[in-house]
Each structure stands twice: as C-alpha cells, then as structure tokens.
C-alpha cells in the first residue's frame, strides 16, 4: 500500500492556513482546516508567477470545493484536485496526506 512519509507534528501546522514542506526534493504546500478536520497537500509551485508560494495563500472554498488563492496574482486552485479554476489547462499535483498520532504523513505515490 501507500508509503507514508513523516513530515512534522500537527502542532507545526497553522490552523486555516498553510505551511510548506520539503519532501524528497519537492516543495509541497500543506493546508489544515481543523474545524472540518481536513488536511490537504498540493504542489507549492505557482505556475503563473513561476515561484514557490502557494503555501502562503489564503484558503476557503468556491461553491463548496476547498481551494487556495495564490498570494501573487490570486488565481484559485482546488485543494481536492489541484485544478486551477481560472485556467482549464493548468493543474497542480495533489497528494494523499493524513494525521496519525498527532504526526502529519504524506504519500507521494499517485
């Protein structure tokens, strides 16, 4: 089954906000919504600005679908699928992520 990689403690996360993790050379943005008990992982790379900043975006939802808004030019990316809401041809990778015993774990396997 999935190979889970330990990232950090739950207390290192920021409620209703994001952090960035370095996992096997990849930059991954991790968002935590404690109220819904949800955690998301998506590429930290902003394909529009071509820089690594998505973890610093504001989060929320568009019509119920969890999203992050890029801090640079405000495009929205689905946290479920990585799809950009404004541009069909742009999609970031998303990853399986979970909380086990107050530790955050990620799987890079598709």
């Amino acid at each position: 089954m999935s190979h889970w990689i330990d990232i950090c403690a739950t207390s290192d996360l920021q409620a209703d906000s994001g952090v960035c993790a370095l996992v096997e050379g990849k930059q991954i943005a991790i968002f935590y919504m404690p109220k819904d008990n949800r955690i998301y992982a998506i590429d930290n790379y902003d394909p529009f600005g071509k820089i690594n900043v998505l973890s610093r975006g504001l989060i929320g939802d568009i019509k119920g679908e969890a999203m992050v808004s890029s801090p640079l030019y405000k495009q929205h990316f689905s946290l479920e699928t990585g799809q950009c809401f404004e541009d069909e041809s742009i999609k970031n990778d998303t990853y399986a992520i979970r909380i086990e015993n107050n530790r955050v774990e990620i799987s890079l396997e598709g």
Partner: protein
Amino acid sequence: MSKKQTLVVIGNGMVGHNFLENLVASDIRDDYDIVTFCEEERAAYDRVHLTEFFSGKTAEDLSLVSEGFFDTNNIKIHIGDKAISIDKANKFVTSAKGVAISYDKLILATGSYAFVPPIEGHDRENCFVYRTIEDLEALTEAAKKAKIGAVVGGGLLGLEAAKALKDLNLKTNVVQFSARLMSAQLDTGGADMLAAKIEALGISVHPSKNTRKIVDGTDCQHKMEFADGTSLETDIILFSAGIRPRDEIARISGIEVGTRGGIVINDQCKTSDPDIYAIGECAVWNEETFGLVAPGYHMGRVVVADLQGQATEFSGADMSTKLKLNGVDVASIGDAHGKAEGALVYTYQNGADEIYKSLVVSADKKKLLGAVLVGDASGYGTLSQYYLNAIDLPEHPDSLIIPSRSDESVGLGPDALPESAQICSCFDVTKGQICSAVEAGCHTMPALKDSTKAATGCGGCSALLKSVLDCELEKSGFEVNTDLCEHFAYTRQDLYNLMMVNEIKSFNDFLTQHGQGRGCEICRQAIGSILASYWNEYVLSDKQMSVQDTNDTFLANMQKDGTYSVVPRMTGGEVSPEGLIAIGQIAKKYNLYTKVTGGQRVDLFGARLDQLPPIWKELIDAGFESGHAYGKSLRTVKSCVGSTWCRFGVDDSVGLAVQLENRYKGLRAPHKIKFAVSGCTRECAEAQSKDIGVIATEGGWNLYVCGNGGMKPRHADLFATDLDKETLIKYIDRVLAFYVRTADRLQRTSVWMENMEGGLDYLKSVVIDDKLAICDDLEVHMQNVVDTYQCEWKTTIEDEEKLKRFRHFVNSDKTDENIVFVEERGQIRPANEQERQHFALTEEV
C-alpha cells in the same frame, strides 16, 4: 477634392467651446478649417461653477478644454484677442490685434456681460462684477483688506456671489431692488422662505432698496445711499444685477439686434446674414434671451445640424433650474408665478423644517405648469419630468408636495418616463440613450457618466440618472448584487455594523453567525481588515492569522520572485544620519536592493522569508519600527521641510507630519491611506493628491480630503480652512473613522467620496455638524486605535511561536533554491527566467 471652407467661432466660452466639441465630433469636421477667437486670457472654463474657485478649485480645475483639444483637432485659437468687426460683404473678421480672417461660415458666441446699473459712484475702487476668473482674483485680493461686503442684486447670480463674499470671511449683505429674492424664479412664499434661510446663515437681506449713489463712508470705504433715505456702509460692492447680451460686434457690423439688445436669430439660429449664426447668451430668439448654458448648448447643436444640411430647429428652452445656495436647496420649474390663465396653485409650507413647495397646475388639474421648491428640492427630478413630458398628474396633484406619511409612493418611477424624456438638460441626454448605454454594459454611475456625459454638467440630474440606472439594471435581470462574496450575503458596511453590535472578534465567529462555507481570500481579507480596524488587536494572533492577506501574514510586501521588501517607518520622512547608516549596514549585510520610495522612506528588497525576523531585529535595535508598507493602513505622512528651514515656510510641516504619522500609524482601513503636510501654499509635499492633505496658512491649517495620485488621480477637496491643530486632528479622526466604517472593501477615499450620496457637503455635515450624532463614537474609536498601537514586528520577534512561520520549510532549514539574484547597476535584482535556467544548468554541471 474641393477646397476646405473656413469656419470662424467668435467667443470661446462655455457655449462656443461646446459647439466646437460637437462640430469636431460630427461628420463634417473635415469640411472646415476652424478658427476661434477668445477674448479672455484663458480658453473655455466652467463659469457655472465659478464659485468653487473659492472652495479651492483652481483655474485649471474649472477648465473645459481637454488636454491637446485645439492641437488634436487642428483648431487655430487666438487667445487674448478679441474679434472687433465683421465685413459681411467681403466676408472677413478683424481682431483687436489686427488679425483678419476670411470666413465662409461665422458663429457668434460672444456671451453676455454683467450689467452695472448707472448709479453715481459705481466705478469707485473695490466695486466689482462677478463674471470671469479675473474678476474673482481681483475680488479675493480686495477682500483681504475688507470686513464688510455688499452684493447688489438678489437674483440667482447675486446669491451665488453672496456665498462667495461669505467664503471670503466678509460680513455679507444682499441689496436688492425688487421686493423678493430670485424674483424671476420664485413666488412670494418661496422667496420669503429663502430670505429667512439666507438670513439664518448670517447674510443680511435688504429688499426693495433702490441705490441712488455710492459715496465715501465713515467706517468703511463706501456708503450706499438708498432712495428711501437709509444707507449701508461697506468695503466691497459686487454688482450682480443681471446680464446683458454682448452684441456690439453685431451692431457695428450691421447685423440685426433686438429692441432690448441681443443678436436676433431664427429657428436655425441664423442671424440676419445667412452665413452668420449666433448662439448662447448673445442671441435673442423670439424676443427671448437665455441666461443658462443648456439652451446655448442646444443652439450649438442646431447649428451643427444645419451645417450638415439636416432639418432642425431651436424652439425655445426650459428655464427650470435647481441649485444649492449656501447649502439651501432651491428649485424652480416652468411657470412658477402661475401666470397662465385658469392656473391653479397648491402650496405646502412647513415653518418648523423651513420647507416651502408650490405647484402650478392647469385648470383641469391634469398637467403641471410650474413649481417652486425651497429647503427641500428632492422632488425636482420627478416634477420636471411631469412638466417637460406633459405627463398626466396623479388624481391629487398635491400628493407630490405633501410629505408622504404612509407607505404609498407618489414619486414618478423612472419606468413611467417615455424614452424621449430628457434626463440631462446640459448635454441633452434622453432616457432612451441612457437605457442603451446601460444595455451596452455601463452598469455603474461613473461608467454611465463617462459614456453619455449625463450629469457631468451642472450635476442636477444625477439622482434621477441613478434611479434610471437602478431601474434598468433591475429590469434586465441584473441583480444589483452587493454581497461581499459567496460566503457572506452582506456589504462590508453591513459586516462592520454586525461586528460592532454583536461584538464579534474573529473570522470563525463571523462565519458561524453570519456566513456559510469556508470563506475565501475576499471575505477573509475584508473581515480581517474590519476586525483590525475596530479592535486593533495584534494581526498575527492565533485567531486573526488565517485572515491576513499574504503581505500582512508576513508583515512584508511580497515581490514577483516570492521574496519580500522591508520598509521601516520614517515619520514625516525624517531620518537621522545614525538611522541611515544603520539601514545601510543592514541592507549590506543581507545583500538587499535599496530604493527611496515616493513616501519619503527607504525600501529594502530581496529579503527571503527566513531573513525577515533577523533583519527586523536589527532594525528595531537601531530604533526603527514597522512602516506598515504591507498593510491596508496608514502608509506615510509626506512633508516638505517647512518653516524650520525653508525661507518661505509658514508653519512647521515636518513637526505636524511626525505628529500625525505617530497618531494614525497602524490604523487598518479598507485600503491604504496616504497623508501629506505642506508648510505653505507652494505645496511642495503635494498634499492635494493625498487621502488626507494639510497645508499651512497664515491663519492655521487647511484640510483637504479624498485626493489620490496613482491610477486615477483626483484632486483633494478643501474640507475646512484655517483650523487650529486640535480641531484639525479632531476632523481627521472623524473623517478616517467614518471612512473605515462606511467604505467598501479595497475602496480608496477618493472613490469613497465619488460614490458618497451628497458628496463633500454630506461628509462635512457628518464630520463638522455631527448630523448623524456619531462624532463622539468616531473619536472614541480613533482614540482606542491610538492607545492600543503596537509595533507588530516588535511583538513578533519576541514570540518564538510566531517566528516558526518565517521558515520556508516546516520540516527543513533549507531555503528556496528557486530564488536567484543577478547584479544590475551595482545592486541585486531577481533573475529572469532565462537567467534562472542558466544558473540551474551551471549548478548541475
């Protein structure tokens, strides 16, 4: 190709210029070489709003000539040169400076002059008329040495002039020959109410006074002696006893003039010579002259149409008028005196609220013939539509002027107006044209004004225009949606009130109590700003963290490469050599790009996220604090060096700038706020382009509000003059607190003002007269913000938990290798993509 004809326009006033604009916008513009004479030293300006010269508008502000107009349209203008004669037989015009030009078509737009009654002593020193910017400049100069002023004439212009004298701080009198004010437009009841209201403003009204002569006074320069044996002493006399057509060029050139003056024109606005037209106040049509701009504009359009060979005619004009005199609303429509046969009159008089309204209706009570409104002119739009479009009156016409005490609505909705109804009389814009513009996508007032020009002349129709807009939007299914976003069905102002009433202190409480879903960057940022504005808590506290925009989250400005810029505060632009050295050393140590900003401070670029805390630690140790360059908050108070050093300085602008910046620093607002303080009227700090601008005067400080540079420049409005420092700060407290409370999200003060119903006058009534009785609250709010200020960076670097956020990776101490700099002009800059790839390749090799 046939040779071009020459068209000459004599007079570049409002009407002459409007004609030129219409001509060059028409399809015959290339048929003519166009020449115009302008007797005054400046091209066309807005004489209707001349009084605003005294409330801070400059000659440039009043100009009607768009930049490059004459050049772009290839119009030859002879400024400061007066056309003096016309040779009709040989068809040429001669000017005072000796220019002679052959014409094919000639347009006379010479306007009118102020009539000065031939009273003995009328030409004494400090006796003026009120017609041109030069008149106003001379008057302003004379007023500096005067205490008392008198206006001769109680008509519309006379009362405008009285306001001007009052604005110049003179004890003001209005001396009128007739028994009542504005006798042409008002009935006795309306005039009496107006006189009472004008007197209440401290202007003395002297009715039925026939001035016999003006002689030396005892206490003042002049004594006016009246036919009834009484007299009045005054330092300045301003004649505003009506206007007369300027027809002298027609007289000497053998063009027919009317028995009471004025150049006679027919329905095509042609004079007795078929190649010569006359338009505006110089013309007399059907033995009638027209002293308003709208009929003059109309005549100009008739001439353009006639030149195009279209059948058209001028058929008289509606002389209805609405204005605000010294804050008193006055309006007159049609036959205000009820002269028509069988006319019936309804009047409503409310002594308590000082409101007077009268209606003149036809004998069968079906049509409105005229109306007078004093004290409350809100019904003007509806009534003038009844009048102009001959719409059948409701069964009880008086319901139109009696205050509605129930829910019944008697107003004439925009829906009831025919497509042909003229909404804007200045630019002849019909309801049909407005509807088309709305359909074509103009969904806001500014867009609609821009596209149709409606409400950009006298502005009297703006309320009506707005109601047509709203009505059309609603009809076409555009919900006028003011929801903040899909998570909150409220405006920013609604949310602000909910927060105050329910004492809400966090985004999550807001979402649970008034919202839905999980929020988004729009509502998070807006609510974050609202909470910070009112409660002024630490923006990175656990419960506020998730609602800060990126820049606020890291208390720095994100740049295009994901690095940040750092701006320490330098109040008033003041910095010590030690401070500059410290900044230089820090910039050098962290290899930052440095640039001086427009706000008189230093910006340090290229700091990685993880470098922000150590940089700030060093800045704070050197005595600096956060400059809030990242926040929607007070940025800077720019200042000139002021009286401390400057030879011309009137007061200490730097001292005041430092005081103001320290007072308002940290204030979170709907958008950024910029201030400036100038030490004299030379205005080196450019205060009139700022949200809040202050300029030193001999008598204290002048306060300007809601200016803007940037994308859409707006000249700030003069809000109050000669204030002492205490009152100045009180007013600024109130203006800012009211802005914070009522503006939309991301709305600068300039746009806030543009959209404010009632505009500057309304803001003054709230802030100066405390109309809403909220000034105490506003001041308490601001004082709380001042008292709870903290340097966010100081708080942050002292909190280990907060500093964890400033690592690029939550699980590694590495930094983002995507950030690469190259050198340019001796400093760093972000590498472009090509350069970045090059670096990546070299590293792999």
